[in-house]
Protein backbone atom coordinates (compact mmCIF):
# COMPACT_ATOMS: atom_id res chain seq x y z
CA UNK A 1 0.00 0.00 0.00
CA UNK A 2 1.04 3.57 -0.60
CA UNK A 3 -0.70 6.48 1.04
CA UNK A 4 -0.16 10.23 0.65
CA UNK A 5 -2.08 13.22 1.90
CA UNK A 6 -2.71 16.79 0.85
CA UNK A 7 -4.93 19.64 1.96
CA UNK A 8 -7.74 20.24 -0.52
CA UNK A 9 -7.37 23.36 -2.63
CA UNK A 10 -11.11 23.60 -2.62
CA UNK A 11 -11.46 23.94 1.17
CA UNK A 12 -8.62 23.79 3.66
CA UNK A 13 -10.80 21.93 6.16
CA UNK A 14 -10.74 18.90 3.85
CA UNK A 15 -7.82 16.45 3.63
CA UNK A 16 -7.39 14.31 0.52
CA UNK A 17 -5.88 10.90 1.25
CA UNK A 18 -4.58 9.05 -1.82
CA UNK A 19 -4.47 5.28 -1.43
CA UNK A 20 -2.70 3.00 -3.91
CA UNK A 21 -2.31 -0.75 -4.33
CA UNK A 22 -3.62 -3.51 -2.04
CA UNK A 23 -4.95 -2.36 1.34
CA UNK A 24 -4.02 -5.30 3.56
CA UNK A 25 -4.31 -6.07 7.27
CA UNK A 26 -0.63 -5.25 7.70
CA UNK A 27 -1.34 -1.64 6.63
CA UNK A 28 -3.86 -0.96 9.39
CA UNK A 29 -1.45 0.34 12.01
CA UNK A 30 0.24 2.83 9.70
CA UNK A 31 -3.11 4.05 8.43
CA UNK A 32 -4.50 4.50 11.92
CA UNK A 33 -1.47 6.61 12.81
CA UNK A 34 -1.97 8.85 9.77
CA UNK A 35 -5.63 9.36 10.64
CA UNK A 36 -4.71 10.28 14.21
CA UNK A 37 -2.20 12.86 12.97
CA UNK A 38 -4.87 14.39 10.76
CA UNK A 39 -7.37 14.53 13.62
CA UNK A 40 -4.71 16.03 15.91
CA UNK A 41 -4.21 18.79 13.34
CA UNK A 42 -7.94 19.56 13.74
CA UNK A 43 -8.93 18.46 10.25
CA UNK A 44 -12.08 16.39 10.49
CA UNK A 45 -13.16 15.95 6.86
CA UNK A 46 -11.33 13.34 4.80
CA UNK A 47 -11.83 12.34 1.18
CA UNK A 48 -10.29 8.90 0.63
CA UNK A 49 -9.21 8.71 -3.03
CA UNK A 50 -9.18 5.09 -4.17
CA UNK A 51 -8.89 5.20 -7.99
CA UNK A 52 -5.67 3.23 -7.81
CA UNK A 53 -6.68 0.75 -5.13
CA UNK A 54 -6.72 -2.87 -6.25
CA UNK A 55 -7.90 -4.66 -3.10
CA UNK A 56 -9.41 -3.83 0.30
CA UNK A 57 -9.13 -6.50 3.00
CA UNK A 58 -11.76 -6.93 5.71
CA UNK A 59 -9.41 -5.86 8.55
CA UNK A 60 -8.49 -2.72 6.59
CA UNK A 61 -12.12 -1.93 5.99
CA UNK A 62 -12.69 -2.30 9.74
CA UNK A 63 -9.81 0.09 10.35
CA UNK A 64 -11.38 2.65 7.99
CA UNK A 65 -14.69 2.30 9.85
CA UNK A 66 -12.91 2.99 13.15
CA UNK A 67 -11.21 6.04 11.64
CA UNK A 68 -14.51 7.31 10.32
CA UNK A 69 -16.06 6.89 13.78
CA UNK A 70 -13.29 9.02 15.29
CA UNK A 71 -13.99 11.74 12.71
CA UNK A 72 -17.76 11.62 13.23
CA UNK A 73 -17.23 12.03 16.98
CA UNK A 74 -15.45 15.29 16.14
CA UNK A 75 -18.31 16.43 13.89
CA UNK A 76 -16.52 15.42 10.70
CA UNK A 77 -16.78 12.66 8.13
CA UNK A 78 -14.90 10.52 5.65
CA UNK A 79 -16.15 9.62 2.18
CA UNK A 80 -14.68 7.30 -0.45
CA UNK A 81 -14.07 8.46 -4.02
CA UNK A 82 -13.14 6.73 -7.26
CA UNK A 83 -13.57 3.02 -6.47
CA UNK A 84 -13.62 0.86 -9.56
CA UNK A 85 -16.78 -1.09 -10.23
CA UNK A 86 -15.56 -4.49 -9.02
CA UNK A 87 -14.12 -3.18 -5.79
CA UNK A 88 -17.19 -1.14 -5.11
CA UNK A 89 -19.37 -4.22 -5.57
CA UNK A 90 -17.21 -6.16 -3.13
CA UNK A 91 -17.43 -3.42 -0.53
CA UNK A 92 -21.18 -3.24 -0.98
CA UNK A 93 -21.36 -7.00 -0.39
CA UNK A 94 -19.44 -6.44 2.83
CA UNK A 95 -22.01 -3.82 3.88
CA UNK A 96 -19.60 -0.89 3.62
CA UNK A 97 -22.16 1.22 1.76
CA UNK A 98 -24.14 1.45 5.01
CA UNK A 99 -21.18 3.14 6.67
CA UNK A 100 -19.51 5.12 3.88
CA UNK A 101 -20.74 7.30 1.07
CA UNK A 102 -19.15 6.37 -2.26
CA UNK A 103 -18.69 9.07 -4.89
CA UNK A 104 -17.39 8.84 -8.46
CA UNK A 105 -15.20 11.95 -8.17
CA UNK A 106 -14.00 14.63 -5.75
CA UNK A 107 -16.33 17.20 -7.32
CA UNK A 108 -19.37 15.21 -6.18
CA UNK A 109 -17.79 14.62 -2.77
CA UNK A 110 -17.31 18.39 -2.33
CA UNK A 111 -20.92 18.96 -3.30
CA UNK A 112 -21.95 16.50 -0.61
CA UNK A 113 -19.71 18.27 1.91
CA UNK A 114 -21.30 21.65 1.18
CA UNK A 115 -24.78 20.22 1.30
CA UNK A 116 -24.26 18.47 4.62
CA UNK A 117 -21.95 20.78 6.52
CA UNK A 118 -22.00 24.35 5.20
CA UNK A 119 -25.79 24.45 4.89
CA UNK A 120 -25.53 26.51 1.73
CA UNK A 121 -28.67 26.59 -0.43
CA UNK A 122 -28.54 25.40 -4.01
CA UNK A 123 -30.44 27.40 -6.59
CA UNK A 124 -32.16 26.19 -9.75
CA UNK A 125 -33.77 28.70 -12.10
CA UNK A 126 -36.21 27.68 -14.82
CA UNK A 127 -37.73 29.95 -17.42
CA UNK A 128 -40.48 28.60 -19.58
CA UNK A 129 -43.05 29.83 -22.04
CA UNK A 130 -46.49 30.41 -20.52
CA UNK A 131 -47.96 27.10 -21.65
CA UNK A 132 -50.08 25.12 -19.23
CA UNK A 133 -48.90 21.90 -20.91
CA UNK A 134 -45.36 22.59 -19.64
CA UNK A 135 -46.35 22.63 -15.99
CA UNK A 136 -46.45 18.84 -15.38
CA UNK A 137 -42.85 18.57 -16.59
CA UNK A 138 -41.78 21.45 -14.34
CA UNK A 139 -43.51 20.12 -11.26
CA UNK A 140 -42.05 16.63 -11.78
CA UNK A 141 -38.59 18.13 -12.35
CA UNK A 142 -38.68 20.05 -9.08
CA UNK A 143 -40.15 17.13 -7.12
CA UNK A 144 -37.42 14.95 -8.65
CA UNK A 145 -34.75 17.35 -7.38
CA UNK A 146 -36.24 17.22 -3.89
CA UNK A 147 -36.13 13.39 -3.97
CA UNK A 148 -32.56 13.38 -5.26
CA UNK A 149 -31.61 15.67 -2.40
CA UNK A 150 -32.99 13.28 0.18
CA UNK A 151 -36.39 14.81 0.87
CA UNK A 152 -39.04 12.22 1.72
CA UNK A 153 -41.60 11.01 -0.82
CA UNK A 154 -44.27 12.87 1.13
CA UNK A 155 -42.31 16.13 1.06
CA UNK A 156 -41.62 15.68 -2.65
CA UNK A 157 -45.27 15.07 -3.38
CA UNK A 158 -46.26 18.19 -1.47
CA UNK A 159 -43.61 20.21 -3.26
CA UNK A 160 -44.99 18.93 -6.57
CA UNK A 161 -48.46 20.06 -5.54
CA UNK A 162 -47.19 23.52 -4.60
CA UNK A 163 -45.28 23.96 -7.88
CA UNK A 164 -48.26 22.79 -9.88
CA UNK A 165 -50.64 25.22 -8.25
CA UNK A 166 -48.41 28.29 -8.30
CA UNK A 167 -47.09 27.75 -11.82
CA UNK A 168 -50.58 27.09 -13.18
CA UNK A 169 -51.83 30.28 -11.52
CA UNK A 170 -48.91 32.28 -12.92
CA UNK A 171 -49.78 31.16 -16.43
CA UNK A 172 -53.54 31.12 -16.20
CA UNK A 173 -53.93 34.48 -14.45
CA UNK A 174 -50.85 36.13 -15.93
CA UNK A 175 -50.76 38.74 -18.64
CA UNK A 176 -51.63 36.97 -21.88
CA UNK A 177 -48.73 38.69 -23.64
CA UNK A 178 -46.03 37.68 -21.13
CA UNK A 179 -43.20 35.94 -23.01
CA UNK A 180 -42.17 33.66 -20.18
CA UNK A 181 -42.52 32.86 -16.51
CA UNK A 182 -39.67 32.23 -14.13
CA UNK A 183 -39.57 29.53 -11.47
CA UNK A 184 -36.72 29.59 -8.97
CA UNK A 185 -36.02 26.87 -6.48
CA UNK A 186 -33.75 27.33 -3.45
CA UNK A 187 -33.13 24.12 -1.62
CA UNK A 188 -30.98 23.21 1.34
CA UNK A 189 -30.99 20.44 3.92
CA UNK A 190 -33.70 22.06 5.99
CA UNK A 191 -36.00 23.99 3.73
CA UNK A 192 -37.32 24.49 0.27
CA UNK A 193 -38.19 27.88 -1.21
CA UNK A 194 -40.06 28.43 -4.44
CA UNK A 195 -40.23 31.77 -6.21
CA UNK A 196 -42.52 32.13 -9.20
CA UNK A 197 -42.40 35.38 -11.15
CA UNK A 198 -44.75 36.46 -13.89
CA UNK A 199 -46.35 39.51 -15.43
CA UNK A 200 -49.85 39.97 -14.10
CA UNK A 201 -52.53 42.51 -14.70
CA UNK A 202 -52.67 44.73 -11.61
CA UNK A 203 -56.25 43.88 -10.64
CA UNK A 204 -55.47 40.13 -10.75
CA UNK A 205 -52.32 40.63 -8.70
CA UNK A 206 -54.15 42.64 -6.05
CA UNK A 207 -56.85 39.98 -5.94
CA UNK A 208 -54.18 37.35 -5.29
CA UNK A 209 -52.68 39.43 -2.51
CA UNK A 210 -56.07 39.99 -0.95
CA UNK A 211 -56.86 36.29 -0.98
CA UNK A 212 -53.60 35.44 0.73
CA UNK A 213 -53.47 38.25 3.26
CA UNK A 214 -57.12 38.14 4.24
CA UNK A 215 -56.74 34.41 4.80
CA UNK A 216 -59.79 33.73 2.68
CA UNK A 217 -60.55 31.10 0.19
CA UNK A 218 -61.70 32.26 -3.19
CA UNK A 219 -64.18 29.50 -3.67
CA UNK A 220 -67.75 29.42 -2.50
CA UNK A 221 -69.08 26.03 -1.56
CA UNK A 222 -70.72 25.57 -4.95
CA UNK A 223 -67.66 26.51 -7.02
CA UNK A 224 -65.62 23.78 -8.62
CA UNK A 225 -62.38 25.78 -8.67
CA UNK A 226 -60.41 28.24 -6.57
CA UNK A 227 -59.19 26.09 -3.70
CA UNK A 228 -55.61 25.78 -4.87
CA UNK A 229 -54.08 28.56 -2.81
CA UNK A 230 -55.86 27.38 0.31
CA UNK A 231 -54.34 23.96 -0.25
CA UNK A 232 -50.88 25.47 -0.77
CA UNK A 233 -51.26 27.39 2.49
CA UNK A 234 -52.09 24.16 4.27
CA UNK A 235 -49.02 22.27 3.10
CA UNK A 236 -46.43 25.06 3.17
CA UNK A 237 -44.96 27.15 5.98
CA UNK A 238 -45.25 30.61 4.47
CA UNK A 239 -46.48 32.43 1.38
CA UNK A 240 -45.51 35.95 0.41
CA UNK A 241 -46.59 37.94 -2.61
CA UNK A 242 -44.80 41.01 -3.87
CA UNK A 243 -46.11 43.12 -6.71
CA UNK A 244 -44.32 45.81 -8.64
CA UNK A 245 -44.24 47.22 -12.14
CA UNK A 246 -42.09 44.39 -13.42
CA UNK A 247 -44.54 41.73 -12.30
CA UNK A 248 -45.72 39.54 -9.47
CA UNK A 249 -43.54 37.29 -7.36
CA UNK A 250 -44.98 34.53 -5.19
CA UNK A 251 -42.59 33.06 -2.64
CA UNK A 252 -43.42 29.84 -0.83
CA UNK A 253 -41.33 28.35 1.95
CA UNK A 254 -41.67 24.77 3.07
CA UNK A 255 -39.59 23.26 5.86
CA UNK A 256 -38.30 19.73 5.39
CA UNK A 257 -40.37 17.42 7.57
CA UNK A 258 -37.56 15.20 8.81
CA UNK A 259 -34.96 17.98 9.28
Amino acid at each position, binding site marked *: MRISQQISQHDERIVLLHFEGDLNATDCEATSKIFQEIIDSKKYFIVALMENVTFVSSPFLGELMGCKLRLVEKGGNMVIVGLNYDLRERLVQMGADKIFQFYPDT*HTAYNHYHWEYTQSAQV*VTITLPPKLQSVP*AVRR*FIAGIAKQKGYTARDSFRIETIVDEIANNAIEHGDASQPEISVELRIDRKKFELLVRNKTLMDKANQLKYVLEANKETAQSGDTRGRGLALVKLISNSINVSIDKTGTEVKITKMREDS
Partner: protein
Amino acid sequence: MESDSKSASAGAATGPFGYSVKLPSDLEYIPPLRQFVAEIARVEGFSKKFCFRTEIIVDELVTNGILHGSQDVHSGITLSARFEDGAMNLSVQDQGGTRQNLENLKRAVYSPKPPSNDKKKGRGLVIVQMLSSEIKIDLGENGHTQVHVVKTKDPDESQAQREKLLYESDI
Protein backbone atom coordinates in the same frame (compact mmCIF):
# COMPACT_ATOMS: atom_id res chain seq x y z
CA MET B 1 -18.29 35.14 -28.76
CA GLU B 2 -15.84 33.17 -30.84
CA SER B 3 -17.69 30.70 -32.98
CA ASP B 4 -15.86 27.47 -33.55
CA SER B 5 -18.05 25.34 -35.68
CA LYS B 6 -18.39 23.09 -38.64
CA SER B 7 -22.09 23.81 -38.87
CA ALA B 8 -23.68 27.11 -39.72
CA SER B 9 -27.15 26.55 -38.40
CA ALA B 10 -26.53 25.11 -34.94
CA GLY B 11 -27.08 28.42 -33.17
CA ALA B 12 -27.77 29.31 -29.56
CA ALA B 13 -30.93 27.74 -28.27
CA THR B 14 -32.00 30.67 -26.14
CA GLY B 15 -34.64 33.08 -27.34
CA PRO B 16 -38.31 33.84 -27.11
CA PHE B 17 -40.57 30.98 -26.11
CA GLY B 18 -37.68 28.74 -25.26
CA TYR B 19 -36.94 26.88 -22.06
CA SER B 20 -33.93 27.56 -19.90
CA VAL B 21 -32.63 25.88 -16.75
CA LYS B 22 -29.72 27.10 -14.67
CA LEU B 23 -28.56 24.64 -12.04
CA PRO B 24 -25.61 23.96 -9.73
CA SER B 25 -22.68 21.93 -10.99
CA ASP B 26 -23.82 18.76 -9.24
CA LEU B 27 -24.35 15.34 -10.83
CA GLU B 28 -27.38 14.70 -8.64
CA TYR B 29 -29.43 17.10 -10.76
CA ILE B 30 -28.93 15.20 -13.99
CA PRO B 31 -31.61 12.48 -13.73
CA PRO B 32 -34.48 14.91 -13.09
CA LEU B 33 -33.07 17.37 -15.65
CA ARG B 34 -32.83 14.86 -18.48
CA GLN B 35 -36.36 13.64 -17.74
CA PHE B 36 -37.57 17.24 -17.73
CA VAL B 37 -36.13 18.00 -21.17
CA ALA B 38 -37.50 14.76 -22.58
CA GLU B 39 -40.93 15.54 -21.19
CA ILE B 40 -40.84 19.06 -22.61
CA ALA B 41 -39.93 17.63 -26.01
CA ARG B 42 -42.92 15.33 -25.70
CA VAL B 43 -45.14 18.31 -24.91
CA GLU B 44 -43.76 20.04 -27.99
CA GLY B 45 -44.93 17.16 -30.14
CA PHE B 46 -41.88 14.99 -30.64
CA SER B 47 -42.01 11.20 -30.62
CA LYS B 48 -41.14 8.90 -27.71
CA LYS B 49 -38.06 7.76 -29.59
CA PHE B 50 -36.96 11.35 -30.16
CA CYS B 51 -37.48 12.15 -26.48
CA PHE B 52 -35.56 9.11 -25.30
CA ARG B 53 -32.67 10.07 -27.52
CA THR B 54 -32.88 13.64 -26.25
CA GLU B 55 -32.57 12.26 -22.72
CA ILE B 56 -29.33 10.54 -23.67
CA ILE B 57 -27.97 13.71 -25.29
CA VAL B 58 -28.83 15.86 -22.27
CA ASP B 59 -27.33 13.34 -19.86
CA GLU B 60 -24.06 13.25 -21.76
CA LEU B 61 -23.67 16.99 -22.38
CA VAL B 62 -24.53 18.02 -18.83
CA THR B 63 -22.34 15.32 -17.28
CA ASN B 64 -19.44 16.55 -19.42
CA GLY B 65 -20.19 20.15 -18.47
CA ILE B 66 -20.11 19.32 -14.77
CA LEU B 67 -17.08 17.03 -14.78
CA HIS B 68 -14.90 18.91 -17.28
CA GLY B 69 -16.31 22.46 -17.49
CA SER B 70 -17.89 23.79 -14.32
CA GLN B 71 -15.47 22.11 -11.94
CA ASP B 72 -15.91 24.67 -9.20
CA VAL B 73 -18.64 23.44 -6.87
CA HIS B 74 -20.08 26.95 -6.69
CA SER B 75 -20.32 27.31 -10.45
CA GLY B 76 -23.30 26.35 -12.57
CA ILE B 77 -24.55 24.87 -15.80
CA THR B 78 -27.14 26.45 -18.06
CA LEU B 79 -29.26 24.39 -20.40
CA SER B 80 -31.48 26.05 -22.99
CA ALA B 81 -33.89 24.37 -25.34
CA ARG B 82 -35.97 25.78 -28.15
CA PHE B 83 -38.32 23.82 -30.34
CA GLU B 84 -39.24 25.16 -33.76
CA ASP B 85 -39.61 24.08 -37.36
CA GLY B 86 -39.55 20.43 -36.47
CA ALA B 87 -36.25 20.63 -34.67
CA MET B 88 -34.89 20.94 -31.17
CA ASN B 89 -32.08 23.42 -30.55
CA LEU B 90 -30.29 22.46 -27.37
CA SER B 91 -27.48 24.39 -25.75
CA VAL B 92 -25.44 23.52 -22.66
CA GLN B 93 -23.15 26.16 -21.22
CA ASP B 94 -20.52 25.58 -18.55
CA GLN B 95 -17.89 27.79 -16.95
CA GLY B 96 -15.14 26.44 -19.17
CA GLY B 97 -12.53 23.93 -18.07
CA THR B 98 -8.80 23.78 -18.59
CA ARG B 99 -7.15 24.18 -21.99
CA GLN B 100 -6.73 20.41 -22.08
CA ASN B 101 -10.44 19.90 -21.35
CA LEU B 102 -11.27 22.19 -24.24
CA GLU B 103 -8.89 20.45 -26.62
CA ASN B 104 -10.42 17.12 -25.66
CA LEU B 105 -13.90 18.51 -26.27
CA LYS B 106 -12.99 19.91 -29.69
CA ARG B 107 -11.37 16.65 -30.70
CA ALA B 108 -14.40 14.69 -29.56
CA VAL B 109 -16.83 16.96 -31.44
CA TYR B 110 -14.95 17.63 -34.66
CA SER B 111 -12.94 14.43 -35.05
CA PRO B 112 -15.08 11.85 -33.30
CA LYS B 113 -13.40 8.51 -33.01
CA PRO B 114 -14.55 5.77 -30.64
CA PRO B 115 -11.89 4.88 -28.09
CA SER B 116 -10.24 1.48 -28.06
CA ASN B 117 -12.06 -1.34 -26.30
CA ASP B 118 -9.92 -1.17 -23.17
CA LYS B 119 -10.84 2.49 -22.50
CA LYS B 120 -13.72 3.04 -20.10
CA LYS B 121 -14.46 6.63 -21.12
CA GLY B 122 -14.72 8.72 -24.29
CA ARG B 123 -17.79 7.29 -25.99
CA GLY B 124 -20.35 9.83 -24.83
CA LEU B 125 -19.86 12.53 -27.45
CA VAL B 126 -19.57 9.91 -30.19
CA ILE B 127 -23.05 8.76 -29.20
CA VAL B 128 -24.29 12.38 -29.12
CA GLN B 129 -22.95 12.81 -32.68
CA MET B 130 -24.85 9.72 -33.77
CA LEU B 131 -28.10 10.87 -32.18
CA SER B 132 -28.09 14.51 -33.29
CA SER B 133 -28.21 16.30 -36.63
CA GLU B 134 -25.64 19.01 -35.91
CA ILE B 135 -23.26 19.85 -33.12
CA LYS B 136 -20.91 22.77 -32.55
CA ILE B 137 -18.94 24.50 -29.82
CA ASP B 138 -18.90 28.21 -28.99
CA LEU B 139 -16.25 29.74 -26.79
CA GLY B 140 -17.24 32.80 -24.81
CA GLU B 141 -14.80 35.63 -24.05
CA ASN B 142 -15.38 34.99 -20.36
CA GLY B 143 -14.06 31.47 -20.78
CA HIS B 144 -17.46 29.84 -20.89
CA THR B 145 -18.02 26.92 -23.21
CA GLN B 146 -21.30 26.30 -25.02
CA VAL B 147 -22.12 23.10 -26.83
CA HIS B 148 -25.02 23.45 -29.26
CA VAL B 149 -26.91 20.52 -30.64
CA VAL B 150 -29.64 20.50 -33.26
CA LYS B 151 -31.80 17.43 -33.49
CA THR B 152 -34.39 17.34 -36.25
CA LYS B 153 -37.54 15.28 -36.30
CA ASP B 154 -37.30 11.75 -37.53
CA PRO B 155 -39.18 10.94 -40.75
CA ASP B 156 -41.77 9.07 -38.71
CA GLU B 157 -42.62 12.14 -36.64
CA SER B 158 -46.09 12.50 -38.13
CA GLN B 159 -46.95 9.56 -35.90
CA ALA B 160 -45.66 11.67 -33.02
CA GLN B 161 -48.18 14.40 -33.75
CA ARG B 162 -50.95 11.88 -33.21
CA GLU B 163 -49.25 10.67 -30.03
CA LYS B 164 -49.03 14.26 -28.84
CA LEU B 165 -52.78 14.63 -29.04
CA LEU B 166 -53.20 11.48 -26.97
CA TYR B 167 -50.58 12.72 -24.47
CA GLU B 168 -52.30 16.07 -24.05
CA SER B 169 -55.60 14.38 -23.44
CA ASP B 170 -53.87 12.39 -20.63
CA ILE B 171 -52.61 15.48 -18.79
